[in-house]
């Protein structure tokens, strides 16, 4: 039994009850003062009939039917609600996925941009460092060359200043034992002869 049938039954019962009540009222109107007891009797009878019709079994039947119908409606609505919930969940998942993907994409984009900027900065820094190192290397090279030239000049100057001693030392070490003083006599005498006047003058004027 579906709800339509149950509705029809209820409507027919109500219409019968109303018609019966209407009939009882008409009858009471026709009888005047004495009719009040009749009406009461009709009302009582109607109530009894109603009580008879709507007894506990019928009410229980109605409760069961209503419970079943309510459960059916609840089940249907639960299904709809479940479907709706699933759909909402699915949409929410899609939304969350798209939002998260979007956010992640944006974050990744920012991250890539940051990495690119950092890389660019690092490259620029490395380039500047290399340039500074190159300049420093060139400057150091120039300084080293200058120092070497200075040191070389100093050594050459020192060598030239002490060249006579160096060569003299070399000659002495090489052939010093072969130089005979007798062989030098003529040279010694020639040197004295060359400076004879100065020697004589100093001997004369000496204290």
């Amino acid at each position, binding site marked *: 039994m579906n709800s339509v049938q149950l509705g029809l039954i209820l409507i027919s019962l109500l219409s019968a009850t109303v018609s019966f009540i209407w009939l009882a009222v008409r009858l009471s109107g026709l009888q005047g003062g004495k009719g009040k007891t009749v009406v009461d009797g009709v009302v009582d009878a109607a109530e009894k009939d109603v009580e008879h019709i709507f007894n506990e079994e019928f009410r229980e039947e109605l409760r069961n039917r209503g419970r079943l119908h309510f459960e059916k409606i609840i089940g249907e609505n639960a299904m709809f609600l479940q479907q709706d919930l699933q759909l909402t969940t699915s949409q929410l998942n899609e939304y969350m996925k798209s939002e998260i993907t979007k956010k992640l994409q944006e974050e990744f984009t920012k991250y890539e941009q940051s990495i690119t900027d950092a890389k660019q900065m690092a490259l620029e820094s490395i380039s500047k460092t290399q340039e500074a190192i190159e300049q420093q290397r060139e400057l150091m090279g120039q300084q080293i060359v200058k120092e070497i030239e200075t040191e070389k000049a100093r050594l050459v100057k020192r060598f030239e200043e002490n060249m006579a001693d160096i*060569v*003299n030392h070399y000659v002495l070490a090489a052939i010093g034992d072969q130089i005979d003083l007798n062989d030098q006599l003529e040279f010694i005498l020639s040197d*004295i002869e060359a400076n004879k006047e100065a020697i004589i003058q100093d001997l004369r004027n000496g204290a």
Partner: protein
Amino acid sequence: MAPKQETATDAYLSLPLSVATKVDVGRLMRELQQIDNFLNEAAIRNPGAGAQMPKTSRLLDETVAINKLNLLHEDDRNRLIGFITHVRAKAPIMHISFSADPSPAFTQKLITRLRSDVHPLVLLQLGLQPNIGAGSVLRTTNKYFDFSLRRRLEQKGDILASILKGAMS
């Protein structure tokens, strides 16, 4: 031209070549004084007393010989003593250094040349400077003469430097 002997005592005496240094002159002086003392003592000694004449050295013998003196004569002794005293006080001294010790023959040749060219009474003071290599270093009263090989090399340093630079380049 050699200057004249500046002695006020005796212009005719001279030094032998063997007397080359002031040490020789001092030694000659001491020996001469010993002989003079001995002869003076002998003159006042009793006749017949034994006495032995001091031996004379080669320096004194040569000095006496070249000056044709007789030391037994007091005048000659006095002349020689005066001469030696004058030489020790007034003779010019030349300090000369060599890279090695000169031999007597070398010294004699040198003093011969110096006494003929520079001064007849010049004396030497010999020194040793091994670091000069070759040549000599001469110092008179106020002057210094460097005739060493080192000095020559210093004077010719430009030539040596140019040669070395040419060899290195």
